[in-house]
């Protein structure tokens, strides 16, 4: 700020902004390294150009979604229902994200079905039921304590029978270092293929925007267990920036599809990399 030339002080300042946005030391050094290279190559880089370069460099690390930078939630074309399995550690916002997604697809006139495969957490089924009512879409459920794979099976069978367009399967939150629980998730995934070959088409890993570097390990372990192929970052309506997804997207090649910006039914947005990067610089403490 107030400087015209990119020098060490500007880069130190940039390091602070990136690290305090949870980008992580490694990815921050990677980004700064690239900027240093460009400064060395282009001899003189003004701070006005820095913004543009920074946006370009960070955008380059973020994987493209299939739909590019679509302005709204869209449903990829598949034979039969498009199945999304939603996974993540405890309390990140999986169930809420499903409610919001259901709303958007429903509004587009798509036929949506929810599957309550979190049969473990207290009142998880009731929570998803309330979302289903709120949005006005059907839900397939069993009792608390029943086999989540069986719920997933039922939901997909029902979706085929009713010719649904999209199925959203909720799963119980689990920490990625719990081997048994991760194996259970692999099993839930496998069972779906028996009903619909190719299902789940999408495994959406939900990351809490306030989570720090542990999100890396979450991405690694959930990908290992379920072949995650899209990300959602929640709770970006607070002061947390969610910068850790840059490194995750880069390292694992998974696109960030959605961001959560509140608890209401409308509070889901399609991810926009430039807005995301800009948010890091909005408030510097």
């Amino acid at each position: 700020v107030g400087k015209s030339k990119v020098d060490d002080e500007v880069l130190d300042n940039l390091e602070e902004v990136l690290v305090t946005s949870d980008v992580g030391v490694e990815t921050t050094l990677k980004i700064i390294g690239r900027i240093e290279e460009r400064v060395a190559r282009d001899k003189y880089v003004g701070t006005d150009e820095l913004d543009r370069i920074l946006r370009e460099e960070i955008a380059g690390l973020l994987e493209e979604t299939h739909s590019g930078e679509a302005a709204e939630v869209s449903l990829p074309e598949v034979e039969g229902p498009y199945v999304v399995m939603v996974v993540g550690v405890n309390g990140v916002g999986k169930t809420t994200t499903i409610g919001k997604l259901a709303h958007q697809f429903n509004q587009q006139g798509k036929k949506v079905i929810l599957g309550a495969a979190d049969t473990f957490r207290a009142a998880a089924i009731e929570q998803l039921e309330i979302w289903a009512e709120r949005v006005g879409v059907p839900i397939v459920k069993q009792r608390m304590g029943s086999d989540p794979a069986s719920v997933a099976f039922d939901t997909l069978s029902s979706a085929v029978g009713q010719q649904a367009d999209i199925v959203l399967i909720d799963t119980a939150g689990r920490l990625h270092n719990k081997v048994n629980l991760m194996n259970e998730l692999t099993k839930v995934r496998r069972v779906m293929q028996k009903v619909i070959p190719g299902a789940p088409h999408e495994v959406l890993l939900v990351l809490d925007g306030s989570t720090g570097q542990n999100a890396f390990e979450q991405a690694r372990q959930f990908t290992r267990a379920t072949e995650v192929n899209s990300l959602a970052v929640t709770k970006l309506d607070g002061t947390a920036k969610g910068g850790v997804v840059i490194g995750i997207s880069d390292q694992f090649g998974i696109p960030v599809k959605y961001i959560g910006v509140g608890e209401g039914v409308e509070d889901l947005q399609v991810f926009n990399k430039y807005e995301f990067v800009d948010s890091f610089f909005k408030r510097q403490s």
Partner: protein
Amino acid sequence: MHVLRGHGQITEINVAETTKEIRRALLDADVNFKIAKEFTNTVKEKAIGQNVLTTLQPGQLLTKIVKDELTQLMGGEAEGVDLQGSPAVILMSGLQGSGKTTFSGKLANFLKSKKTKNPLLVACDVYRPAAIDQLHVVGDQIGVPVFSDKEVKDPVQLAKAGVAHAKQNGHNVVIIDTAGRLAVDEQMMTEISNIRDAVSPGEILFVVDAMTGQDAVNTAKAFNDVLDFDGVVLTKLDGDTRGGAAISIKSVVDKPIKFIGTGEKMEAIDVFHPSRMADRILGM
């Protein structure tokens, strides 16, 4: 962490590389950027000029200084919760999904089984879908009654009614579960401060996810500014997060970390051990 080689005295030169590594380790563990910087400077000052004991290499000494400093920072006397008052009132606060409802159950279970108390859980989250049902399921699991009223939409009124209900029914502890809220949500922050004013809790706990990153300082400070809470609960430590948020929070609000959550089950509660936490943060 790499350690310094060589022996003799710790000097400016041989300490520089290592403090850089320490700072990196702290940042990787999610310790806040500014706090990590301050901390490494303190360690550097303490270390320089110290004579290396015969049994310790300079690197080992530095590692020891770091560990001791961290432990001291997070430590202080282990304090329990304030159970004075009839009934004693405990208020939960924190961000969405941090683990308040689960911890309310764990604490009730702990006070019932370990301290022979007769607790009442009070459901004041009127917003999250099925939050009240969730607390009822938790209460049933541990055999602790839950006060709720789905007709009432005002959490302040609910909290007051809950305390009154406890008095009438001979409960000596009341645990109030509240909705998750963001520190930037003024209306919701005012609401929880109104709950506090209405029921004067002897103990206000700030429940925070151990996986939290750099934002931990902002949130802890903002909640403390509004509530002046008494202690911190660090949840989800059964994961593999380093948990540097513990240092950030302790540095910024200087309130004791009283409990940790180590699982989803009602028994998964423990008191906080600063030295174990220091090891964990340093990856030792």
